């Protein structure tokens, strides 16, 4: 079995509102899977279905090869976007309670909490009340509680919100090391730079439908359209620009007089870049030549815009 989670044509309706429409997903094991989409697209509903908080009207979900059932709850860890803790309860007590709800024994939960509290340097918070902690501190505890029962599948919804850059980095390292230890991770976020950094696979959900999914590197390849960025050293930019414009499709250009640096963005008809390189090398010193690969952000925006146009 290569997939930790498979969703088949999942549809969910709330009254007249369709939250999910025939969404199918395959989430590979031991990878970080980015679940992307604008606000209100249906991501949270899908996550709630995976957590069995709600149930699909149509379609089925398989967890590790089996049809999703209540026993799987203890193998899933979920850090919701809207998260909080009991304000007047002590940190240790609360963490123990939540861990026991996930099926851990009290002794085991205590042992693991100790380990994690030391790892994240929060050991002396045990007897503090949540209302005495800052938001970022409470977030750390929530993270610990989510991963404590060592689930096979972790679902993080905006895990970095509320963290300062240092702690965000700390959490990111923990997520990566969890993945290295064999955990599969679903990662839902709007922050595209963390998608680039972390996700191997992505799915894009828009207006209740999945409009794109696959390996991030494959998607990027598919979204490349032969745009190249060229850096040239020349004293005579005007001549060069007009020459280039005659032969190729020039998208943009800028010139730095002091450095005598001309930067061009070119659209080529095919992947074939030798012709332009040959041409340029006879005219000036080429000090940069790189194919422009779309960022996840570009893909996100472009796909959704295309979809919206198609709808109209």
């Amino acid at each position: 079995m290569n997939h930790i989670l498979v969703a088949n044509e999942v549809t969910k309706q709330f009254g007249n509102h369709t939250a999910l429409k025939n969404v199918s997903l395959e989430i590979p094991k031991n990878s970080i899977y980015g679940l992307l989409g604008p606000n209100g697209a249906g991501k949270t509903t899908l996550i709630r279905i995976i957590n069995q908080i709600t149930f699909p009207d149509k379609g089925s979900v398989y967890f590790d090869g089996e049809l999703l059932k209540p026993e799987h709850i203890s193998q899933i860890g979920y850090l919701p976007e809207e998260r909080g803790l009991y304000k007047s309860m002590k940190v240790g007590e609360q963490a123990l309670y939540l861990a026991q709800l996930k099926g851990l024994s009290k002794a085991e939960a205590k042992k693991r909490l100790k380990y994690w509290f030391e790892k994240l340097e929060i050991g002396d918070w045990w007897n503090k009340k949540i209302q005495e902690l800052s938001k970022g501190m409470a977030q750390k505890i929530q993270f610990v509680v989510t991963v404590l029962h060592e689930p096979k599948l972790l679902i993080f919804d905006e895990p970095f919100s509320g963290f300062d850059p240092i702690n965000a980095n700390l959490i990111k390292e923990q997520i990566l090391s969890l993945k290295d230890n064999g955990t599969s991770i679903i990662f839902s976020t709007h922050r595209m730079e963390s998608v680039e950094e972390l996700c191997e696979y992505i799915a894009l959900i828009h207006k209740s439908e999945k409009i794109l999914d696959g390996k991030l590197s494959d998607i990027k390849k598919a979204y490349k359209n032969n745009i190249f960025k060229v850096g040239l050293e020349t004293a005579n930019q005007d001549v060069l620009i007009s020459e280039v414009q005659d032969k190729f499709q020039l998208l943009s250009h800028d010139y730095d007089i002091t450095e005598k640096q001309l930067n061009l963005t070119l659209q080529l008809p095919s992947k074939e870049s030798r012709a332009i390189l040959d041409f340029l090398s006879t005219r000036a010193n080429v000090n940069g030549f790189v194919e422009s690969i779309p960022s996840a952000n570009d893909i996100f925006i472009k796909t959704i815009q295309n979809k919206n146009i198609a709808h109209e």
Partner: protein
Amino acid sequence: MNKLPLIIKREYLAKVRNKSFVIMTFLSPILMVGMILLIAYLTQLNDNEERVIAVLNDSGYFSNEFIASEATSYVNFQDLTLAEAKDSTLSLGYYGLVYLPSEPNLEQVAQRTFFYSKEAPSSIVLNKLENTITSRLRQERLRELGLSPKEYAEMDRSYNMNIETFDGLQNIKGINEIKAIIGGAFGYLIMMFIIIYGGFVMRSVIEEKTSRIIEVIISSVKPFHLMMGKIIGTSLAGITQFAIWIVSGAILLFIGLTIFDIDPASLTKGGMAPGMAGNASVDVDAVTQNIQLYAQEIFEIPIFAMLIFFIIYFVLGYLIYSSIYAAIGAAVDNETDTQQFIFPVILPLMLAIYVGFFSVFSNPNGPIAVAFSLFPLTSPIVMLMRLPWGIGEGGVPVWQLISSILILIATFIGIVWMAAKIYRVGILMYGKKPSYKELYKWLKYSS
């Protein structure tokens, strides 16, 4: 693994450790007992106040009719004019002056008799004086008809109706009031418990919603378990609180009464009419006999059955109402939005209490009492108010009791099912102030 005990434990501890809950638990009995002691003490103080009343008797009547009692004593003025008597009364600091003028006959004496006092006299004093004069008048009128004072005394014995049920059991006056008090106490207890602890359940649900922990919890437990755990945990905290109140209240009251040396009887005596207190010639045998009769009647009340039915009605009634409270808590985002939903919930409770006090006590088996003891939202209170009159013959017919409980159970299942649905949808719904129409829509959502 069953997570319900874990949830119950947490909810219980969260409630019991809450500071305001702890303060309420220990302060309430002190305040209550303090108030009772204060009232008792003041009553006693009032009783102990010695009143001296001056009597200026210019008439030929009244020689030793004014008999001193524990709170009042009389001083006879002689050979004084009315003006002098008034001055002396005032300067001696007496409570007041009775002036009986010189007139040809008693009727006229009575007509012209005045009571002078610094302020308006207390009704007790006035009553006593009026009784004395009335009694003397009656004696005089009868004497004119040819009756001796001895015959008059013989004639003045009061009469009490003998009452019996058809079964031949001796009945006594006032027992219906006692039954009403017992039934009312049970009904009132249920209402208070539902309102106080239902409100706690609701606030606890709102707290989970506003602190956003709900989504964390709900991914590990079923909403229904969370709701039931909350209701049960809170009610256990409530029972703990009630138990502490009763035990510590009783102990404090006992200690207080001992320390301040207050006679507990003085608390109940206040309720008696002043005229009755004056009529001190009740013989001791009759009193003990009456007490025995009351005790017998109270034992006639099916205490054991009442306790069992109290528990049944209490549990079912509380579960119905607190799951409604939980659903309300889930439907709103903050406490201010709860008002529109709370009122329809409290309404049947209030109605039950009013129906109980105004209809059940005067006619425990009348149509209104029967209807409200079958209607599930009022039956826990109204039926318990009817039960002191017995079950079966003369009391609540067995079929009514059974159908009332069956209707209650059916309602319980229905309401908890509906509340659980609203709860499940509501806890994950933010930023909406729901209408009743919206709630109806939630009921139809599939899970």
